[in-house]
């Protein structure tokens, strides 16, 4: 009889290069890259230098091919998220899962799909279940390194004469993956087991054909099976197009040249990244912080999840003398019982999305940049949970906030160097996520996640205003989609789409404005809705005197009299809620329930015909002192309704007149008004050091809301460095401390705690 070891022993020849297994190849790449400081030990780019035209030709073919595959394959999808918004991406990898070239789209998945392939390599998939030509694998397991459950990966190995020469991965953001709440980023999940249908790097097809058991199980596990099915066909089609392309390139160029190319292009990416850092930034330390509210008290959730908390993400960028980029997130909040947790790969990989829009704005997005950087990702934090139970379905809530100080930090470097055209004051919190599900207006079990959030306001630059209602950092090609398409697919009619004045942060250059869609329930049989966005807190700071983008809020109305009003042709709530201090919707309807508050995250609520819900897409932060803004630009803002009238004077110091709906700024009066505001600033402010004495007293008295105290207690429990710096700044003695256990919060999940000597 055979022993277990003998049974498990490989019976097949290894599928890596030169008789190695993929696992051996992975270990070798890591070792050699670390030892030499060059990717795969490539000290000289001999191919690129000796035959540069050929080298670039191969690159262009591959890059063009993956972009083409994305553009073509997305037409297969029915989901507006993929087809309208372009929420998909394809990437080509080495046998060891390092990215070579990537398409446009949601390029955060350069890292996440690589993490999935690495997971298969690490777990000896080569032996069991086996990796063969024609296999198809699927992954969306958050804890393998995915962003969130709805990002479903299709992974296909590429073989050449019995050897794996690479992998191709395709990802789409699927509209629903069967979570505790409907939609792709639902509220409701607080544990992994609520996050929906999770597939852990599973072989789902052989010989280029999907298995029937997979097709049946997967489509029965999600709402909106047609979207799921066509998304999968999209991914498989794209992967196979790219596999064919790679095999064509190998036939044309020879496999040895292809192997040389994929090593050198990554090393080239690494060097290119270092050069860009040196070209555009300044060595030193850049610090920032972001916050996002988790207002869960009283929500329809397990008791242990019903608490208000804050996701705190301090960041310190160090640009070293050799241009090595290091980003440390020490001091960040603990992971929690909410769907906003993340994985290390998602936070680091998302940083490339950002950097590709500023620091490395070229098509050489590959893992070279990864090898030129270091990240400090504290274990136990919200983006590195020490417990597989953490939920991730709406991970972007925290991620989008966590990245915005990095834009600002790098922008300080660009300012110092004079590259003002690259400055970005930060990004909008790309929400709200308007979601729902049930039996839709076609009678089908379905779900929605309105991706209008792909068109939020952009942060201001140092030379112009941020672009309004146009983009999201996670998909630089962002688009709000056509109302007509959304209305076909969702049981919600549009009562208007309108710019929200003042949603972009004020400044010399203002942040791009956000906007609002008002939606009316229509035609669904059994439907629920929820909102998910930042509410009580601004997630950014503004830059060099600019204000943060506005915070969020919700508006919804249930059991309205709109049916009757429509029949009688009476005025209706239409357009945006353009000045929430003076709301008009309520003047044009009656409703049993009106929610108008800062509760910008909710769990499912039943939603009927003629109910109303507002989708508020946020604005970006501003740049520079608003008093420095050219009065003519303020005049344009007034006439184009980008700001509310009263803030033209209060914030921008612009005195104006109005005649027949046209605004004109009085330049002389403005000059005087601005002088007066500056005088008032000095009168009502105080020297920072004096203010610090007062603030210190508040700290000593523990005078702050519970959620604020909890935020500090979590960061203190996880980080000695953060605690020391906090105490040193405020000059507070050893006897002062805030502990989580003193705040009457759940004990569940609070494992790592340096005060309990178990860290």
């Amino acid at each position, binding site marked *: 009889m055979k022993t277990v070891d003998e049974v498990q022993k490989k019976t097949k020849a290894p599928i890596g290069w030169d008789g190695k297994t993929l696992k051996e190849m992975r270990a070798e790449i890591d070792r050699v890259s670390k030892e030499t400081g060059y990717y795969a030990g490539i000290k000289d780019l001999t191919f690129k230098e000796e035959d540069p035209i050929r080298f670039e030709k191969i690159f262009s073919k591959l890059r063009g091919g993956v972009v083409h595959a994305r553009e073509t394959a997305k037409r297969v999808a029915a989901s507006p998220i993929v087809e309208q918004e372009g929420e998909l991406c394809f990437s080509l990898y080495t046998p060891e899962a390092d990215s070579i070239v990537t398409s446009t789209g949601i390029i955060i998945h350069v890292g996440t799909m690589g993490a999935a392939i690495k997971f298969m390599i690490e777990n000896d998939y080569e032996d069991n279940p086996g990796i063969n030509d024609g296999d198809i694998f699927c992954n969306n397991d958050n804890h393998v390194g995915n962003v969130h459950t709805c990002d479903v990966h299709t992974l296909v190995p590429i073989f050449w004469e019995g050897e794996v020469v690479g992998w191709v991965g395709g990802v789409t953001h699927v509209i629903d993956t069967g979570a505790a709440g409907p939609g792709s980023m639902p509220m409701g999940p607080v544990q992994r087991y609520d996050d929906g249908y999770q597939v852990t790097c599973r072989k789902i097809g052989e010989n280029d054909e999907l298995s029937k058991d997979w097709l049946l199980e997967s489509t029965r596990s999600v709402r909106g099976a047609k979207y799921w099915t066509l998304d999968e066909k999209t991914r498989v089609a794209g992967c196979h197009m790219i596999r064919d392309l790679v095999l064509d390139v190998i036939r044309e160029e020879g496999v040895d040249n292809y192997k040389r190319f994929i090593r050198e292009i990554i090393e080239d990416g690494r060097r290119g990244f270092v050069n860009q850092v040196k070209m555009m930034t300044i060595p030193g330390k850049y610090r920032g912080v972001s916050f996002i509210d988790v207002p869960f008290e009283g929500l329809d959730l397990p008791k242990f999840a019903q608490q208000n908390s804050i996701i705190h993400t301090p960041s310190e960028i160090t640009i070293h*003398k050799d241009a090595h980029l290091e980003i440390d997130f020490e001091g960040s909040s603990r992971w929690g019982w909410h769907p906003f947790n993340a994985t290390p790969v998602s936070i680091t990989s998302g940083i490339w999305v950002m950097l590709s829009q500023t620091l490395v704005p070229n098509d050489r997005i590959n893992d070279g940049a990864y090898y030129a950087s270091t990240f400090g990702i504290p274990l136990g934090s919200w983006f590195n949970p020490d417990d597989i139970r953490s939920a991730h379905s709406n991970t972007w809530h925290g991620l989008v906030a966590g990245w915005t100080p990095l834009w600002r930090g790098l922008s300080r470097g660009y300012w110092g160097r004079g590259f003002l055209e690259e400055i970005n004051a930060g990004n909008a919190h790309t929400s709200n996520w308007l979601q729902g599900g049930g039996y839709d207006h076609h009678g089908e079990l379905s779900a929605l996640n309105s991706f209008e959030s792909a068109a939020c306001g952009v942060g201001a630059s140092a030379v112009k205003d941020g672009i309004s209602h146009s983009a999201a950092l996670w998909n630089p090609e962002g688009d709000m989609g056509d109302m007509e398409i959304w209305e076909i697919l969702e049981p919600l009619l549009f009562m208007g789409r309108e710019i929200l004045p*003042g949603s972009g942060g004020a400044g010399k250059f203002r942040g791009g404005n956000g906007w609002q869609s008002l939606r009316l329930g229509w035609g669904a049989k059994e439907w629920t809705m929820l909102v998910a966005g930042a509410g009580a807190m601004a997630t950014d700071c503004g830059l060099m005197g600019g204000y*943060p983008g*506005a915070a969020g809020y919700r508006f919804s109305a249930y059991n309205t009299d709109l049916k009757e009003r429509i029949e009688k042709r009476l005025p209706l709530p239409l357009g945006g809620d353009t000045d929430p201090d003076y709301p008009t919707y309520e003047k044009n309807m009656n409703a049993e329930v009106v929610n108008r508050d800062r509760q910008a995250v909710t769990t499912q609520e039943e939603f009927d015909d003629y109910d109303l819900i507002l989708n508020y897409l946020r604005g970006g932060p501003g*740049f520079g002192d608003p008093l420095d803004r050219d009065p003519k630009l303020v005049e344009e803002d007034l006439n184009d309704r980008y700001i509310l009238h009263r803030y033209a004077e209060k*914030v921008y110091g612009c005195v104006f007149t109005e005649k027949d709906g046209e605004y004109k700024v009085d330049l002389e009066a403005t000059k005087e008004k601005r002088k007066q505001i500056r005088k008032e600033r000095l009168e009502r402010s105080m020297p*920072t050091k004096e203010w610090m004495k007062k603030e210190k007293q508040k700290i000593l008295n523990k005078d702050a809301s519970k959620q604020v105290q909890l935020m500090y207690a979590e960061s203190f429990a996880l980080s000695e460095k953060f605690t020391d710096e906090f105490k040193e*700044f405020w000059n507070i003695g050893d006897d002062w401390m805030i502990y989580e256990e003193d705040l009457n919060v759940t004990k569940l999940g609070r494992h790592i705690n340096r005060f309990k000597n178990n860290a």
Partner: protein
Amino acid sequence: MSEQKYDHKVINELVEGTLEWYQIKNMMSSHKDPERFKVYREVMQERVSWDDPILLPLGLHLYIVLKENGERIVKCDCGHEFCDYKENWKLYANIFVRDTEEKMNEVYPVLMAPDPEWQVIREYYCPSCAAQLEVEAVTPWYPVIHDFEPDIDTFYKDWMNLPLPEVKSKG
């Protein structure tokens, strides 16, 4: 030495914010000009009324400058001098904290402003000219953020291969 890609006039317009979008777009789309810093620093020096050599522009109104005694300090374009460049200039600024709904409402409609129970807005002004130099949106108690600590010597010596600006001798 290669010709300058952008002259003083263009860079001055960039700083002024008066370049047309097509010019900015071209600038963004093309390779960066290595000599930008040199031209930019000279432009910034021309724009201020004082003579202390600018070592590094630090913010919209702020500069790290070299004093006659060799000190490097943070200075506002109005002439106000804050502190040594290694310290956080915000500690030497004036501060105004928006920590009530009323104060928030001066900038945003109530529901579009942060809830002061969760977050406050801190505005840092120059004590002389009252320019709003930085705005922080943070929780109460948050230490004042030291945004940027540049390594000026490495930058000039190792990265730019430029001599550090010197104080002009008088007379």
